[in-house]
């Protein structure tokens, strides 16, 4: 495929200006947005790292290989890549046609507007592009100082629990104080004034041991390990911190995947219809739009689901209400508030499972579909793991509890993950969960004794 000529580039620039004019007129308020034209390899690289400039790790290389293989076999094509930042950064594929890239730009405008106005993005860092580059530099320095293999092993471990941060706390917020509250003045305090020595004595710092026993279970596993691991060096704590910071940045995108893609798809369709396109371009646009919104029998196409829900909201509550939805909802609230029985039937949503070698539809009840959807979206696809105790049995062992919601863990994977956590904690790791019949099951791991199950 040939890359864009300078003439096509100029044409595209004019088109993007038009897109912006139309979108602004229709009410979008995006960040200033910078478009960059890149070759496919760069596109796939940015796609597999999540952002340009992120740290090196083989899992990124694996994702890159997957992307590239799919591309080489013509199985998939990333059309659009947009980074939540202010100014917003978007990447366009060098080998796309002017029309394809115009559609992508309209889609990007929707995302940029969403980043700027959705409540869940309000606290994300808009300078993450710089941050990830600085993080990558630090990790590179650690590789130089401590060896690539050592850093890789550490990252393997940290990345295995990267999803376990507090979804609803911002990255900057410090952990909730688990030190006892300051002593309140009491009526007879003055009696003690006689004892001068008491007054002069500074309040004792809480012993380190007690800080490892949170008053409330802690959801932010990464922060807990960073702050209380008995074995990590400073640089290792920094690596934990880096992964946590970057994860916090990605969380709103996980929480709003359906809504965000639905919003962008809704706007690319509306804006493109306003543009002055030739007949050929109209056909090309219709074909692309259909491809993007293609339903899939085995997995949910977030573009399609979000787009259809938004169209339904527009029909029922009017256009103005759409802007409110984009401001206050995330995927879970969107599904809870706006997925109706009619919509489930119209979109032909169903539940299927594997029976022998076949995948069979097992349920079409709309409420069952809604509940499963909620379980799969917005971060609910990751089990909630809570730190109960960082000084279990008075031996600095780490006691974790899987917050049970009726779904059982993949125990084989849980055991492998506990090995990673041991690398970070250095003492026996415990995990409490439940079995099929709802009875308590406790796993433990220590390399000397291997995996154990206690009932």
């Amino acid at each position, binding site marked *: 495929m040939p890359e*864009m000529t300078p003439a096509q*580039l100029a044409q595209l*620039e004019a088109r*993007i200006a038009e897109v912006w004019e139309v979108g602004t007129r229709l009410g979008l308020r995006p960040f*200033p*947005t*910078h*478009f960059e*034209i*890149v070759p496919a*390899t760069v596109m796939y690289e940015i796609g597999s*790292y999540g952002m340009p400039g992120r740290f*090196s790790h*083989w*899992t*990124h*290389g*694996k994702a*890159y*290989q*997957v992307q*590239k293989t799919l591309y080489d076999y013509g*199985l998939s094509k990333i059309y659009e890549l947009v980074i939540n930042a202010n*100014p917003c950064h978007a990447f366009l594929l*060098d080998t796309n046609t002017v029309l394809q890239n115009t559609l992508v730009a309209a889609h990007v405008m929707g995302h940029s507007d969403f980043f700027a106005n959705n409540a869940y993005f309000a606290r994300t860092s808009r300078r993450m592009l710089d941050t990830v580059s600085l993080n990558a530099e630090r990790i590179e320095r650690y590789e130089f100082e401590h060896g690539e293999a050592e850093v890789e092993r550490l990252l393997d471990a940290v*990345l*295995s629990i*990267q999803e376990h941060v507090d979804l609803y706390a911002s990255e900057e917020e410090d952990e909730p104080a688990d030190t006892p509250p300051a002593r309140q003045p009491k009526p007879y305090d003055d009696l003690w004034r006689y004892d001068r020595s008491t007054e002069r004595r500074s309040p004792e710092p809480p012993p380190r041991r007690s800080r490892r026993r949170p008053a409330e279970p802690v959801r932010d596993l990464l922060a807990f390990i960073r702050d209380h691991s008995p074995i990590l060096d400073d640089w290792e704590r920094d690596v934990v911190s880096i992964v946590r910071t970057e994860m916090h940045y990605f969380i709103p995108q996980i929480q709003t995947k359906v809504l965000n893609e639905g919003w962008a798809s809704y706007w690319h369709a509306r804006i493109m219809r306003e543009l002055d396109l030739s007949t050929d371009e109209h056909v090309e646009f219709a074909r692309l739009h259909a491809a993007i919104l293609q*339903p*899939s*029998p*085995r*997995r*949910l196409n977030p573009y399609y*689901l979000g787009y259809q829900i938004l169209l339904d909201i527009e029909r029922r509550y009017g256009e103005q209400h759409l802007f409110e939805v984009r401001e206050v909802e995330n995927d879970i609230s969107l599904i809870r508030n706006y997925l109706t029985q009619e919509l489930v039937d119209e979109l*032909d*949503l*169903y*539940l*299927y*499972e*594997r029976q022998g*070698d*076949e*995948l*069979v*539809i097992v*349920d*079409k009840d709309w409420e069952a579909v809604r509940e*499963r959807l909620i*379980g799969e979206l917005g971060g609910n696809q990751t*089990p909630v*793991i809570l730190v109960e105790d960082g000084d279990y049995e008075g031996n600095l062992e780490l006691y974790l509890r*899987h917050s049970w919601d009726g*779904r*059982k863990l993949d125990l084989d*994977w*849980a055991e*492998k*993950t506990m090995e990673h956590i041991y690398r970070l904690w250095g003492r026996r790791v415990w995990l409490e969960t439940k079995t099929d019949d709802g009875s308590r099951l406790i796993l433990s791991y220590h390399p000397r004794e291997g995996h154990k199950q206690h009932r």
Partner: protein
Amino acid sequence: MFSISLTRGDWSLHRKGAIDQARHMQKVKEAIKQNLADIVSEQSIITSDGKKLVRVPIRTLEEYRFRFDPNSYPQVGQGEGGSKVGDVIGRVGPGQGPGQGKQAGDQPGIDYYEAELTVEELGQLIFEDLELPNLEEKRLRELESEAVRFTDIRKHGPFANLDKKRTIRENIKRNAKRGNPRFGGLKNEDLRFKTWERDVKRESNAVVIAMMDVSGSMGTFEKYISRAFYYWMVRFLRTRYDHVEIRFIAHHTEAKEVTEEEFFTRGESGGTRASSAYQLALQMIEERFDPESWNIYPFHFSDGDNWPSDNELCRRLAEQLIERSNQFGYGEIRQGRYAYQSTLMHTLERINSPKLVTVTISDKTDVYPALRRFFGPEAREVARA
């Protein structure tokens, strides 16, 4: 403040993805190497024609995390209208058991946790540090393999070796110096010629005599193990050495030289006299492979269930073989019969020579260690000592 901008930069030096991809591939190879013992004795490989792709599961490259059991909950999918409970929407391969990672609904057709390799690529990993131990330069009939390599450029030479590209470049360069960068007006000083070197590699003669017990006491497992070992040995020798001869001897109470194909496919029955094979090997050496000019490597695989009256003769013949050889390898396959005393192994172990290397195989996964014991760096240490 701008609201939109569009640029195209130079990304040609951008290679991070490719670098991390290479690291991932390296990990794939490491993972395969860790599993070689299992892979080497994989039936489907041994019985393949060598062109087949081998699928190797790589569990260490799974990105483990806390997740819900993927097989115990239904997934959400989307039809094109009119779907009913009970409709079959697809199939999954029978190989994908629970815990193997791949969820229904992942990318179609490609399972990333299994690497696909050709038998040749697998061979390269297996043979990486294997070699014939104790190889000596022999006096006679050293085989030379000769190659011509073009390595240099000169201003004079036969026109057959004219380097046209460089000549044109020189011409344009000379024209450019006079302010006219084009091709034309060729002069002698523009001409460039390729020159070559003769690349002579000396390699010593070597013969491997592969002996295998095909008597009735060799069960399916024993035969399979011997063939698996010889399969990789033959591949290894063919891959690594251009001039190694391989001779095949099958024996029960009598020994016979057979073709490679017969060696790998024929089954026999009857009792066992290993001495017959050693006798034939000695005769072969006598007639065709003078130890003065050949490196000689006899190997023998058996279940060790030899006629007791034959053992003494075996020992004497084996001693003669060892005397003429660089290394004598004996592999005994004893599945669960550890206590059995009167085996060929006990007879041979009475021979005190560093050139005698023995292994006992009781499990499929022992084939790879056996290869390493005969051909690996460890074997060379022993040979040198």
